[in-house]
């Protein structure tokens, strides 16, 4: 063991675009470490014998090992080390909630600041990609078997990547015109540049994965049909949780009320921030309120500023500590001028005579007893109603299971909320059909979707070799 004393310098800062500037453009906010900063940050790692960070990582990235390679200047090697268990490090380095995963467990965090594991993960993956050091791994001998993946989000991409290497023929079916799932239609460019997702998809294509875009399974092609007519030996369903929740308060169908999915799909997938070069009109608003407290809500409210809002409000019914969004996003939003109305719940969307939003009636909340989620239940404070003057409202209070595909397969067992039931390895009630990601867990995280994909890929491989 290398007994060299770790360096005692502070956590290295991430260079970022200035808040005033970035709040008006869609370019990425953090600019990334350079080699020297990356090395200095990696030097802080204690190389623990029992690394707590790894236990906080849902896919057990070999964190101290990759940090050691960064320290030694072998950045591409570090990237490959991460990729042993995480296929999309350039994505995860940007969007994982590190503060509640690896960095939340890191021993250095007990007294001071944890190693910036996420930033280093991003650095390594970017370095490998930018320097064109990405190597196509050897594929196993062809098994002669075919696998269909339905949905091209992180769960689907992971399964495709794993099974193509194990020698399967893999085709991904995707309803939209671009692959990537939430990574392309939901998460904005300023947080995850689309060129990165494109590069990951290209990597899979280079490995031989086929993509059938504009194909809605359940409509264009039946699930059974994939197996019985098209000869797929197994199917992995990763269609995400893409059904928007509305609040069921009066005024939700007024013009200027958007679901977060519509708001973000316009901005990201359809690139309406580049309107009129792109034809889809952007969801404009001078005074915009976003309802919700998760990553989706933060993405919407920060997009609102970038689409030209003068006032962008975040309305959330609990307090800041309960906000499920990544800490960094909340912090960035604050710097950019997002106005937080916490402990506040919307009661009614108010409209004008033309059917357009003119305001949001809100009520202040206080926290009462903990509810089933363990968070303190917000209760309205009588007589505390007030009106926010607005011309757009975005509802970002979560998503549900879309029944489009599942309703066409009655044999597929669902839970009472419509999510697919699986065993811990992704097997559904239908032989040969597997599922993972948000369509099993409900809206979760990129890394959990990828973890589920990896488990399912292993189970599929096991089951298909047995046959």
């Amino acid at each position, binding site marked *: 063991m290398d007994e060299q004393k770790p360096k005692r310098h502070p956590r290295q800062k991430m260079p970022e675009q200035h808040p005033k500037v970035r709040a008006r453009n869609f370019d990425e906010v953090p600019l990334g470490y350079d080699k020297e900063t990356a090395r200095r940050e990696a030097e802080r790692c204690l190389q623990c014998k029992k690394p707590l960070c790894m236990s906080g990582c849902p896919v057990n990235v070999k964190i101290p090992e990759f940090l050691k390679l960064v320290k030694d200047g072998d950045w591409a090697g570090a990237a490959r080390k991460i990729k042993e268990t995480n296929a999309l490090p350039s994505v995860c380095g940007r969007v994982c909630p590190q503060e509640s995963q690896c960095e939340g467990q890191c021993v250095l965090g007990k007294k001071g600041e944890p190693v910036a594991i996420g930033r280093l993960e991003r650095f390594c993956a970017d370095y490998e990609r930018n320097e064109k050091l990405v190597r196509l791994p050897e594929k196993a001998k062809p098994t002669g078997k075919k696998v269909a993946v339905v949905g091209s989000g992180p769960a689907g991409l992971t399964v495709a990547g794993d099974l193509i290497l194990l020698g399967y023929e893999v085709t991904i079916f995707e*309803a*939209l*015109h671009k692959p990537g799932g939430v990574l392309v239609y939901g998460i904005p460019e300023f947080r995850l540049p689309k060129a990165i997702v494109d590069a990951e998809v290209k990597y899979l294509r280079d490995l031989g994965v086929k993509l059938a*875009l*504009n*194909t*809605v399974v359940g*409509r*264009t*092609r039946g699930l059974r049909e994939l197996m019985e007519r098209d000869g797929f030996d197994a199917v992995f369903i990763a269609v995400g949780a*893409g*059904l*928007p929740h*509305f609040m069921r308060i009066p005024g*939700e*169908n007024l*013009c*200027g009320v*958007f*679901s977060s*999915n*519509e708001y973000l*799909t*316009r901005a990201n997938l*359809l*690139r309406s921030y580049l*309107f*009129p*070069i*792109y*034809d*889809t*009109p*952007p969801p*404009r608003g001078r005074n915009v309120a976003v309802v919700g407290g998760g990553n989706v809500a933060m993405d919407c409210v920060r997009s609102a500023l970038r689409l030209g809002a003068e006032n962008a409000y975040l309305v959330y019914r609990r307090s800041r500590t309960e906000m499920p969004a990544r800490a960094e996003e909340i912090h960035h939003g604050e710097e950019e001028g997002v106005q937080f109305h916490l402990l506040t719940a919307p009661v009614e969307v108010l409209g004008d005579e*033309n*059917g*357009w939003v003119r305001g949001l009636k809100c009520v202040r909340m206080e926290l009462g007893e903990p509810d089933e989620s363990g968070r303190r239940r917000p209760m309205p404070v009588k007589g505390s109603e007030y009106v926010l003057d607005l011309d757009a409202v975005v509802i970002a209070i979560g998503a549900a299971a*879309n*029944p*489009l595909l599942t309703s066409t397969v009655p044999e597929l067992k669902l839970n009472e909320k419509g999510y697919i039931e699986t065993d811990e390895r992704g097997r559904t009630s239908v032989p040969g059909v597997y599922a993972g990601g948000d369509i099993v867990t409900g809206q979760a995280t990129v890394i959990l979707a990828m973890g589920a994909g990896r488990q399912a890929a292993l189970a599929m491989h096991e089951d298909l070799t047995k046959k």
Partner: protein
Amino acid sequence: MTRIIERREVAPNVHRLIVEAPQIAEKVRPGQFVIVMPDEEGERVPISVAEWDAKAGSIVLFFLEVGVSTMKLARKEKGEDLYAVVGPLGRPATIGKFGTVVLGGGCYGIGAITAIAKAMKEAGNRVIAISEGRSRYLLYNQDTLRRFVDECLEATTDGSAGKKGKVQDVLRDFAKREKVDMAYFVGCTFMMMRCAETAKELGIKTLVALNSLMLDGTGMCGVCRVSVGGKTRFACVDGPEFDGHDVDWLELFQRKAIFVRDEVTAYQFHACRALRRHEGGD
């Protein structure tokens, strides 16, 4: 990429487009639609499937040139490709033996209604088609409709063909002469609303194919939401067919106009660009 087999302007600003889409042609049922993107920058435009040929693997679409994306579609020629065509989407139309069925079509609906006409006839109904246009030269698709229906009636605002008036006026006359068991309207929102009102007065069960704004067409974004019978429904997955007497038409009008200003800007932007290119600019 989807190959264009034919595109023809069948009436001023109305185009009939045949594209190669074998998977869709095999699956599509009357009343369903597809979403079309002319190019990568284009909008996702929902268009009803009017006819199809499963053997040849082709589908027929009618569209009105109203905005940038349909302008781009209208400039495409045989042999060129569309960036994306996805479908079939939406629930199939309610087809059954009702007795006498009146179908009303306006603008793109004169073409789109073909699928329903054919299916209603095959189901054993007496089928009457009524088409409307401002003037005779705006009526099209009549020869095709005539092949499937028992009577093909027309209405024009200027009286140059058929009855002077609208679909609802022809419907009113017809209902005096024969009992109508079901009415089905496809076309612009205003026309469908007016027709549904008249049918209600006459006590005729009415179905309409709504054309709200859409993005994904799979229930993901909610822009297509409409109020029907006091409930919010997503037109792309719960519809496009709804009971015409239950639709909140005012809300639908308002929601369809959400992006009108930008749509005009985009049209002008692209028209200018096209002109400049034509003149040897950029």
